[in-house]
């Protein structure tokens, strides 16, 4: 027997535990205080008081409505934009540009993207400056509520800007799998316009493959905290933001109300998922009846133009937003309505050098540990499944997506309560395990396809040369998969860097990363400081992607066969 492999069969179980343990534990930890049981505060249940308190809070219904509308609205808009872009432009020369921009844009952390957008659309932001005073007549920033508007429109915009690149990337990979280009050619040769043909023929096949990511986007939009703190309204805020506020209240009894709200949040997401599924079903029925009539919609120039416009707007919002962060971080005096600061200075960077260095170190330390653990577990799982002939079924896929479907605000507060109840430390170690829950799915999703596409005959011929499975793994498969593994690591780092809620709550407020620091600055409105932290946050997420591009290109510079992956 090969004793060195005996740990391998345990890895899938261990991974499952790391993935689902905190979710289940956290939900349990939410359930108890929601029904009045919180020994740490000297309370024992069961009682319905937390729910009574929640319902008595005057902001309850408005915040529920806000969460539903912004969440479903953002998910629906994002999916529509993605469909329109692909329907009008997939496979064209212009689209290649979009594809190239996609991965870096995707890795921009939520908070940085939200701040960037805020700097663009605020009353004193670039958009207003561009048209002032020559068009608007404004000599000073207008007194209108654009950011944090009560309808949540700027929040929806911020969510859409982040979700479009994600769904686009997922759809492009799905399109390759279903042979979408050829199907579209058939529909076009039958006389259908690009947009109508794509929607009728390619979209249904793609949607089946991106359905889980779409549902993740839906759940995420409804319950996200950092973006909602930056762009969402505050009186009332979304339910998730309110949960976090109650969780940080020094009065421990507010945790009961927070737990009750967390259960309501979970319920809202479940309701939204059901509503979404019903809408899917009706749309299928409607489209069946519609396409039976054979209308060709040959003139779709306007729709294609709209698609191009939306793609441009989303990428510009992200790119100009980041540029805004850069300018503010180096800005000296910058008066309205000047497009650029009067002078550039390093003062903001110097002022925040100590604080930002500590936060950067903490961020890197946590991301490093999380991704190391995560990649060992993920590769271990893939290899174990390979050797024991296991396959990730569609049920397994749901398990993988579960931590992304259950709203963070539904189980992270409970996880904190649970840790407190057991007298366990909140802090860096716990934060690392909490991040792992969200990093593991993305590691697996990034590695799944490259791992499966690897030519198994390489293993067969290596084995025929007398190589052990262990030797094949280390000497053949890993080196050949270097590029996708580094990309997965970069994705994992970006996910860890962007985590706000788990860092804040599981860190007990004592773990200060670039993200928690940046979001904490939101209420103060110090744009220069936000610029510094937002940029560092973006850099921390982007740098690993650059490394993932450069390292394989250098190591395999004389190996043409390994340059495409």
């Amino acid at each position, binding site marked *: 027997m090969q004793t060195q492999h005996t740990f391998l069969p345990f890895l899938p179980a261990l991974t499952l535990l790391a993935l689902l343990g905190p979710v289940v534990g956290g939900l349990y930890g939410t359930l108890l205080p929601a029904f009045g049981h919180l020994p740490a505060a000297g309370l024992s249940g069961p009682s319905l008081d937390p729910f009574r308190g929640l319902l008595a809070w005057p902001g309850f219904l408005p915040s529920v409505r806000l969460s539903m509308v912004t969440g479903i609205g953002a998910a629906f808009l994002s999916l529509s934009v993605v469909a329109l872009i692909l329907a009008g432009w997939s*496979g*064209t*020369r212009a689209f*290649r540009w979009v594809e190239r921009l996609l991965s870096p844009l995707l890795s921009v952390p939520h908070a940085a993207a939200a701040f960037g957008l805020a700097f663009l659309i605020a009353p004193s932001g670039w958009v207003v400056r561009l048209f002032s005073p020559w068009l608007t007549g404004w000599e000073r920033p207008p007194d209108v509520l654009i950011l944090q508007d009560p309808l949540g429109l700027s929040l929806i915009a911020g969510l859409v800007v982040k979700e479009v690149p994600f769904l686009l990337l997922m759809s492009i990979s799905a399109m390759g799998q279903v*042979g979408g*280009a*050829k*199907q*579209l*050619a*058939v*529909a*076009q*040769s*039958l*006389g*259908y*316009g*690009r947009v109508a*043909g794509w929607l*009728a*023929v390619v979209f*249904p*096949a793609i949607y089946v493959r991106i359905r889980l990511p779409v549902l993740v986007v839906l759940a995420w939009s409804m319950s996200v905290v950092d973006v909602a703190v930056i762009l969402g309204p505050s009186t009332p805020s979304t339910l998730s933001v309110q949960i976090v506020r109650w969780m940080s209240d020094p009065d421990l009894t507010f945790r009961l109300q927070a737990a009750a709200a967390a259960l309501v949040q979970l319920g809202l997401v479940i309701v939204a998922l059901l509503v979404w599924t019903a809408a899917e079903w009706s749309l299928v029925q409607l489209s*069946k009846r519609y*396409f*039976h*009539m*054979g*209308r*060709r919609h*040959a003139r779709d120039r306007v729709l294609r133009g709209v698609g191009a416009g939306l793609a441009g707007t989303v990428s510009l919002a992200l790119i100009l937003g980041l540029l805004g962060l850069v300018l503010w971080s180096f800005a000296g005096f910058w008066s309205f309505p000047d497009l650029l600061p009067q002078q550039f200075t390093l003062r903001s960077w110097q002022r925040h050098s100590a604080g930002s260095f500590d936060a950067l170190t903490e961020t890197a330390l946590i991301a490093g540990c999380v991704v190391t653990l995560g990649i060992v577990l993920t590769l271990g799982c893939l290899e174990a499944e390979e050797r024991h002939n296991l396959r990730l079924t569609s049920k397994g896929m749901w398990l993988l997506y579960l931590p992304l479907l259950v709203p963070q605000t539904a189980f992270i507060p409970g996880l904190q309560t649970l840790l407190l109840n057991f007298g366990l430390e909140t802090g860096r170690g716990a934060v690392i395990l909490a991040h792992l829950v969200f990093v593991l799915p993305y590691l697996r999703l990034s590695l799944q396809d490259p791992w499966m596409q690897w030519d198994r005959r390489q293993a067969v011929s290596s084995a025929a040369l007398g190589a052990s499975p262990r030797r094949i793994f280390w000497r053949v498969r890993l080196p050949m998969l270097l590029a996708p593994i580094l990309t997965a690591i970069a994705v994992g780092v970006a996910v860890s860097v962007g985590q706000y809620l788990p860092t804040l709550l599981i860190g007990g407020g004592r773990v200060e990363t670039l993200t928690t620091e940046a979001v904490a600055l939101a209420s103060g409105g110090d744009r220069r400081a936000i610029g510094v932290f937002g940029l560092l946050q973006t850099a921390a997420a982007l740098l690993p992607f650059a490394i993932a591009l450069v390292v394989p290109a250098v190591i395999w510079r004389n190996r043409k066969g390994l340059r495409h992956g």
Partner: protein
Amino acid sequence: MADQSKLGLRLEGLEICHGDRRLVALNHEIAPGEVLTLMGPSGVGKSTLLSAVIGTLSPEFRLLGEIFLNGQIITNLPPHQRNVGILFQETLLFPHMSVGANLAFGLASGGTRAERRERVNLALAKVGLEGFADRDPATLSGGQRARVALMRTLLAKPQALLLDEPFSGLDAALRTKIRKLVFEQARAQNLPVLMVTHDGEDAAAAGGEVITLGG
């Protein structure tokens, strides 16, 4: 009306280049009801030529020359305005639609819901597939799928038909039958046909001119 002598599919000084490399050059005219067969090893650009004619040439290729269909230049028209039908080896029936819905999708618009259903059923009956309208395309045999794909293409009333190795997936006996059906239908509708194939028998059965590319 177009001049009788101009009817058919004409490829005038057609060249497809990839960078500096010329992949295909062709100067040919296919009269209505006739078949032009292109043969040659794979990778020689046969399918690329077909994608140029239907208008889905990938942007990394460059196209020179003109394509005329019934006297009209279609070289720069978007694919859906060309009236050129195509059949692929992988029949590419849309998997989320029933057989009938696939045909209704091809059928030119117009008519009531019931009339359209009737015409779909007629088309199915024409190729011996009565009562197949509600079937899932995935449950059909290769020959049945080929017949449905053919009818879907013809219901859209194309003015030319392209065949991209459409018989390669079929076994020998079926192949002869389907081939005969396709050519009969194309001739009946007086369509110029451009076929790409590996198989000498296909070329022989087509009865038209054969051009060998590359090699």
